[in-house]
């Protein structure tokens, strides 16, 4: 995973347009992947991963002038914003059960077909169900590690943990997932 250079971040904070664009290009995939990994199942309420990723990018842009390098890495700053946005959406989705119906789009739908969507939705649903049963820290570690593509060290800097602690946490998370998955698998295929 590509991490924004601290020098570029400093220039972006100072208002250099080129640096800002560079930073945004780098954090956009992070925002999108994190949102998709966390919210892939939430399509209701009009708030999709697409909207949340965009909001995260805008919020990072807006908050950029306020970012001061105090030893806390820029990725942690971005992650904090993204995590808060996603949590907001989750809360709103839990609260708001209404389903808004937009106009029928008159453009070809390029998204995967119903079969593939059923399969992935099944996979997604399965994994999200499993992830939901994990402690928050374990879940975040797995999401950052797998979906966003961070290394254990990067996850450690973002979450404020040591790399060893991250490794231990991910091991515990996987162990727990294995038992949970074994249970669900035996449930499905007795």
């Amino acid at each position, binding site marked *: 995973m590509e991490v924004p250079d601290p020098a570029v971040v400093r220039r972006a904070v100072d208002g250099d*347009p*080129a640096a*800002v*664009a*560079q930073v*945004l*290009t780098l954090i*956009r*995939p992070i925002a*999108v*992947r994190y949102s*998709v*990994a966390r919210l*892939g199942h939430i399509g209701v309420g*009009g*708030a999709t*991963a*697409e*909207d949340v*990723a*965009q909001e995260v*990018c805008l919020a990072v*842009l807006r908050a950029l002038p306020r970012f001061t390098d105090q030893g806390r890495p820029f990725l942690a700053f971005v992650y904090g914003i993204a995590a808060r946005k996603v949590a907001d959406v989750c809360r709103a989705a839990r609260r708001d059960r209404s389903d808004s119906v*937009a*106009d029928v789009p008159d453009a070809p739908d*390029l*998204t995967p077909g119903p079969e593939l969507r059923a399969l*992935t939705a099944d*996979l*997604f649903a*399965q*994994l999200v169900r*499993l992830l939901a049963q994990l402690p928050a820290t374990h879940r975040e570690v*797995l999401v950052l*590690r*797998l*979906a966003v*593509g*961070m*290394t*254990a060290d990067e996850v450690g800097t973002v979450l404020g943990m040591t790399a060893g602690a991250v*490794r*231990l946490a*991910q*091991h515990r998370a*996987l*162990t727990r*997932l*294995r038992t949970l*998955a*074994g249970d669900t*698998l035996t449930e499905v295929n007795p």
Partner: protein
Amino acid sequence: MTSDGPTTPDPVEQDDRLLDAISRGAPPPPDHPADDPIAALLTGWHADVLARSQHLESTLQLTPVGPAAHDAPASPSTVAAAPIHGTAARRDRSARSPGDDLTRRLRWRPRHKAYTGAMLALVTITSGVWLGAARAQPGELMWPVTRLVHADRAEALITEREIVRTLDQVRQDLASGQHADARYHLERAAALLDAINDHETAVRLRNDIEQLRQQLPAPAPEAPTSPSAPDAYVPTDLPAPSLTVPATPAATQPTGTDPEPAADTSIQSPPALPSAEPTDLPRPTRPARPNVQPTAPQPQPSAARTSTAETDVHQQAPPARPPRPRQG
């Protein structure tokens, strides 16, 4: 670390390597247990997230506000459109297109309503005042408006009232036996009748006048019979009329139409009265008519009546009949 011994691999290390491999998009490490149910699941999930993210990123070409052009020159045109394609654009469109004229109508309604209400109130008040004025009677709240707006009607109303009042006076006079007063008032009412334009009212009033006239003791032919009968009770009332009467004799006597002064002077027993006369209210108007008589004395038939009024005055005062020989 792998050198620690392939026989007992550290599970933490093993999982770390597994996650590294999956996040790289590579298959699980060869030393990873093949029966791990999680490996395939996580691999599939990772691939799925990546696919979705790439799809999203392709549609969601985000660029910073101004300077993005030289960093992401690939699709500058989609930049502005794509982000708005989300919920915001949909909300905007749905808010404007279907209910556009509705909102305009809603915006116009309050002003329209106020205007209509004001016009309605104005029309109501105007017509109410107009109608009230059209039906107002003298002394009512709307009477001034009536005098302003329906001047002729107001005039006619006043005249009608005056006539009615006069006729009432005539009736009172008749009841009290003051025939001269009654006759005079009757004449006045008849004169006022000309000012009334409303045919119906005019006819009604004329009938009233005629009726009252017939009640009057017609002095001309049946004078000997009729006046005597009512005079039986008159004397009690006499002092008042006799006091008021002298004004006319005083006016008529000097003209000297009557040849018998003796009888008249005998009637006017109180000579000091004429000085007291002027204080009596209705009389001053009276001489106007008697004064007319000399100018057009006897020839007209109508004058006969006016002359009878004069003679009646003489009749009432004394029970004696000096005028009768004059008329006969």
